[in-house]
């Protein structure tokens, strides 16, 4: 049971972190060589698929993580090198708490991208709009793209830090 939980937990983090690195490192690079009209189509299609993959992976990581913590045997934990404890006064507990906060921030970032920033990038111009309205609409889309950029960068850094914190738990935590 513990092996299955640990496996599912690791896979969920892998899909999320590896996916966000690939989207940043591979898709962004390919976009530079594409005409703007096609960039928006590819962004829309990949973004709408990735938001469900990302949110699903984070959901599974959170659920299996909570189950793994609930199944921790304090006696076995204490017998590990460094005698880690499930307490906020111990590096192990502090690392676990930080990891939980980062996970919550990543869920918030992914949800904001999926339900707010991504839909905001769709331009809603119509023939009856005035020149000023069209200009405002363009500026609104531009602001949404800039915010999305910042959230993506935060997501990338936070997910890599999460992997580092998770990997350090075997040695008693990083903090």
């Amino acid at each position, binding site marked *: 049971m513990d092996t299955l939980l640990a496996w599912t937990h690791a896979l969920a983090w892998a899909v999320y972190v590896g996916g966000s690195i690939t989207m940043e490192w591979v898709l962004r690079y390919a976009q530079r060589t594409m005409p703007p009209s096609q960039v928006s189509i590819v962004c829309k299609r990949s973004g709408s698929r990735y938001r469900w993959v990302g949110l699903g992976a984070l959901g599974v990581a959170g659920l299996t993580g909570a189950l793994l913590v609930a199944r921790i045997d304090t006696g076995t934990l204490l017998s590990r090198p460094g005698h880690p404890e499930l307490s906020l006064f111990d590096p192990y507990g502090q690392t676990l708490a930080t990891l939980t906060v980062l996970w919550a921030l990543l869920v918030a970032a992914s949800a904001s991208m999926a339900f707010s920033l991504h839909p905001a990038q769709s331009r809603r111009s119509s023939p009856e709009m005035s020149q000023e309205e069209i200009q405002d609409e363009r500026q609104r889309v531009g602001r949404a793209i800039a915010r999305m950029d910042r959230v993506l960068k935060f997501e990338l850094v936070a997910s890599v830090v999460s992997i580092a914190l998770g*990997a350090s738990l075997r040695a008693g935590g990083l903090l």
Partner: protein
Amino acid sequence: MWSNPDLLTTVLQVIYGILHDLSIAIYIGGAVAMEYVLGPAQNSIPPAQAQVMGQKTADRFIWLVWGSLGVIIITAILRLEALGHIAYGWPILQSTMGLGQDYGRTIWAMLVLWCVLVANGAIMTFYLRPRLSGRLKPGTTSAGVQAAQQAKMEAARWVERITRADIIIAIVIALFGASLRFNGIL
């Protein structure tokens, strides 16, 4: 962690662990994103542009794949060494790495599967990708053009099959890896 007696060993183990886990995440998550996110997105643009996008993304992703596979094996060896499973004397592999132990069998199975991933990566990089990006020479007959297109489509189908097989193999490796904390699964 910092209160451990052998600080340097612990710090190194943590660094190896972070790099190892990050590489596995990049390999598995990257393959899933390429196959199930970027692939369908690529099909939504005109074929000529989709081919350029496919080439650009695959060129970049290949670096991630080879980098991950390299870091995975190096950090795996370093971690096994740090945990005392590899000794530089005779016998090189201590009893825990022997085929008589669950732990040893699981490690060897992971190594064999890693070799399959490397072989698949080599087939894609050095055999299938050059076929996908091959350009027609001036003066090629229409039959030649059709044959080249057929060959490209066949190569693309093989890339898809191998990528999906790689995802399954990497997921099995992750299962074996997760089981090592409980002394292996085989």
